[in-house]
């Protein structure tokens, strides 16, 4: 275990690191983050003993760094530098074998069979064994970095220090390198202290994170404790957003440019057009959208919103792929499109605008259902489908998006209730149909709206717009069904 206790250090009498204290425990990966000039590299130089502490102490298992001889220290601490400096032609094997230097004994410094075994092992671990006889100069940046990691591991250190190990590496190499490190940490009780520039890499791989700012320790803790929007924004002076990682239980840090790029024209609005068997709602620019649609589910950025009519007997083993092909055929870009399907007739669309909210709703109630009784009914996908598209002017928080969905759903149920739409099986009032879909799209321009419950102006507008549009669509539906029968 390495203990840094109130350590200060720097160059020419000026402190670049100011009373920093932390412990890096065995089997943990500790990350050091901070903006340029925050003292990260100075701190690492102090830990390697290259720079003496002006104040405080740095000890490894109780012994001060300065009390080790250079060879003793090299058996305990290894360093993976930022980028291997160019050198003459050495073979990969020769470079890795350099890591055994502190173990050579005697005047001739001969390598023992143990040295050779370690070199072989670390080359296998880092996946460079097949490169053994190649020249280091002929390798790619990622391969070279792995060779240098092998060299560092050949020192059989207890503590591995890394100075921006993933710098200059492409994405897959970054992840591979960090994966290898993490594995070594977990298996071998190795302690790793790494300077990391990429906050997301730090968040994903570190057990502990140390945030440095102007030589001082701003915070120290687990990634979720450390990655707080406000703290990071203050230290890095950059707009960023922290949210949950989509698949890992770790924070994800998203950067945002501080300048608005090509501000869209606020006066343009969404247009709607029927094109053959689908309705196309076209937004003038990309709207942030939360939807349950087949295409563009979850949060996405979209400017094209498709409501496609399919026959009642539509069946396809891979509906998503089929729909994607359909969208491409219609020459929309499927990445920026929200696409829903319905068996209802798109001619029945109801449209309502209230303040900053516009709702487009198509409704069929052939399969109306009471959500509270749905458990009593057999599962069968019969057509029905109320598809709702909401367009909102304003900047919505994630909470506001979800509340907008709730409000819209409640207004839908109310509209069905007021028109007396019944669940045929349960013989109660229906709350929706079995396959409803909704999308909420916001311009993300202008005022930030934090809530969209029915207590707020936005909530009220959503409720009214949805109610009116759905009622209108149901009226069209009744009309058409009525005239037909």
């Amino acid at each position, binding site marked *: 275990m390495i203990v840094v206790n109130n350590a200060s250090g720097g160059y020419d009498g000026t402190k670049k690191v100011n009373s920093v204290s932390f412990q890096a425990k065995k089997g943990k990966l500790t990350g050091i983050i901070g903006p340029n000039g925050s003292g990260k590299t100075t701190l690492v130089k102090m830990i390697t003993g290259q720079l003496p502490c002006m104040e405080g102490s740095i000890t490894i298992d109780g012994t001060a760094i300065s009390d080790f001889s250079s060879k003793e220290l090299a058996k305990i601490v290894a360093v993976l530098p930022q980028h291997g400096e*160019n050198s003459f*032609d050495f073979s990969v094997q020769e470079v890795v074998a*350099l890591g055994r230097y502190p173990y050579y004994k005697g005047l001739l410094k001969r390598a023992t069979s143990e040295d050779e075994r370690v070199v072989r092992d670390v080359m296998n671990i880092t996946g460079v064994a097949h490169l053994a006889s190649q020249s280091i100069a002929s390798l790619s940046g990622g391969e070279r970095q792995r060779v240098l990691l092998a060299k560092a591991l050949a020192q059989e250190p207890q503590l591995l220090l890394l100075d921006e190990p993933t710098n200059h590496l492409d994405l897959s190499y970054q992840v591979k390198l960090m994966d290898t490190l993490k594995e070594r940490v977990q298996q071998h009780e190795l302690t790793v202290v790494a300077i990391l520039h990429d906050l997301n890499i730090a968040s994903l791989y570190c057990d502990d994170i140390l945030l440095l700012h102007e030589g001082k320790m701003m915070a120290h803790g687990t990634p979720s404790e450390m990655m707080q929007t406000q703290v990071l924004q203050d230290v890095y002076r950059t707009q960023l957003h922290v949210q949950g990682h989509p698949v890992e239980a770790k924070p994800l840090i998203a950067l945002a440019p501080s300048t608005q790029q090509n501000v869209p024209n606020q006066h343009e609005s969404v247009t709607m057009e029927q094109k053959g068997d689908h309705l196309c709602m076209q937004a003038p620019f990309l709207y942030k959208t939360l939807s349950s649609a087949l295409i563009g589910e979850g949060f996405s950025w979209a400017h094209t919103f498709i409501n496609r009519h399919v026959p009642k007997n539509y069946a396809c083993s891979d509906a998503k792929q089929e729909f994607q092909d359909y969208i491409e055929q219609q020459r929309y870009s499927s990445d920026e499109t929200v696409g829903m399907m319905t068996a209802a007739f798109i001619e029945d669309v109801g449209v309502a605008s209230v303040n900053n909210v516009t709702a487009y709703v198509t409704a069929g109630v052939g399969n109306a259902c009471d959500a509270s009784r749905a458990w009593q009914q057999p599962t069968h996908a019969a057509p029905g489908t109320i598809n709702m598209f909401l367009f909102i002017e304003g900047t919505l928080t994630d909470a506001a998006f979800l509340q907008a969905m709730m409000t819209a759903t409640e207004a839908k149920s109310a509209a069905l209730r007021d028109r007396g739409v019944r669940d045929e099986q349960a013989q109660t009032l229906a709350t929706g149909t079995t396959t409803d879909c909704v999308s909420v799209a916001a311009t993300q321009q202008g005022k930030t709206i934090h809530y969209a419950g029915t207590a707020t102006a936005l909530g009220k507008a959503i409720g009214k717009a949805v109610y009116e549009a759905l009622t209108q669509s149901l009226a069209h539906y009744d009309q058409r069904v009525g005239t037909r029968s």
Partner: protein
Amino acid sequence: MPKRSIQTYSKSKWTFSYIAMLLLLAVVAALGISVGSIPIPLFHVIKIIGANVFHLGSLATIDPTESTIVMDIRFPRVLLALLVGGSLSLAGAAFQGLLKNPLADPYTLGVSSGASLGAVSVIFFGIQLPFVGAYTLPIVSIIAGFVTLVGVIVFARLVQRNLTVETVILTGILCSSFLGALISLIIALTGDELRQVIGWLLGSVSMRGWAYVNLIAPFLILGLLLLLASARELNALSFGQQEARHIGVNVKRHTMSVLLGASLLTGAAVAVSGTIGFVGLLIPHMVRMIWGGDHRHLLPLSMIAGGIFLVVMDIVSRLIVAPSELPIGVLTAIIGSPIFAFIFISYRRKKGTS
């Protein structure tokens, strides 16, 4: 086990390389003794040396003049070329590894000029150190070379902390021209032996005799041992001082012993042969291309190859404008400068792409 076979293969590869190089050395040396204004058959050369050095066979059938030419003129001359070439190449390999600089060599770093200034001072002012006798010349050369080297490195570090290739070479050249001017000044002030001095400055191994062989030999051995003792550390240092420190190298001590060893070699070589440029640049570069950068082999192989190279150069310098002789330093500069340019270009290219 495949690993073992690779190892035995590589071990036998090294043995083969050393034997081949030593054989080549012997052949070239014999040629060097044989060729000249009075050609001496190779067979005679072998006989004369066999009889005089190893006391084998007899000289009954050999013309005594031939024997005198071989033993008093040609053999020491070739031996001197071998030792000087070996010393300069060793020094070059050490400088290049230590400074991570493919363009470093005693000549480009200005060490040769420093050593020359020392040697010229000794010759013209008749300086005589106590207790060392004839060794005054190489010792003063070595000290002057070492002081120059330290000066160049300190100055280059003042210019730029991390000692880039270009800064070091530029500083070396600056130093060289300054010291060259000082040498010219000394010569101008002291007299009229201009032609002889310039001949010496241009570098030559001719007409030196056994005395000069004796002057350089001990320093070559000492320098070689000093450098070989730091061969592994040189490997580490060629990745940068910081990296070397990280794997536990005592950087200060080994830097010092490498600088000292290389200065010994350069100073002694300059003292006996003047400034022969580019050998230390060229040879390690070629050796590295064939055998790789491991200093444990690079150093001895460079020494052997440097010896071979300089003997060949000496033969050419004798033949090219016969019956007169070209100073060997002129020849190495003519060949070395374009190769310096080539190494410089390929180094910049490599740096640009990575």
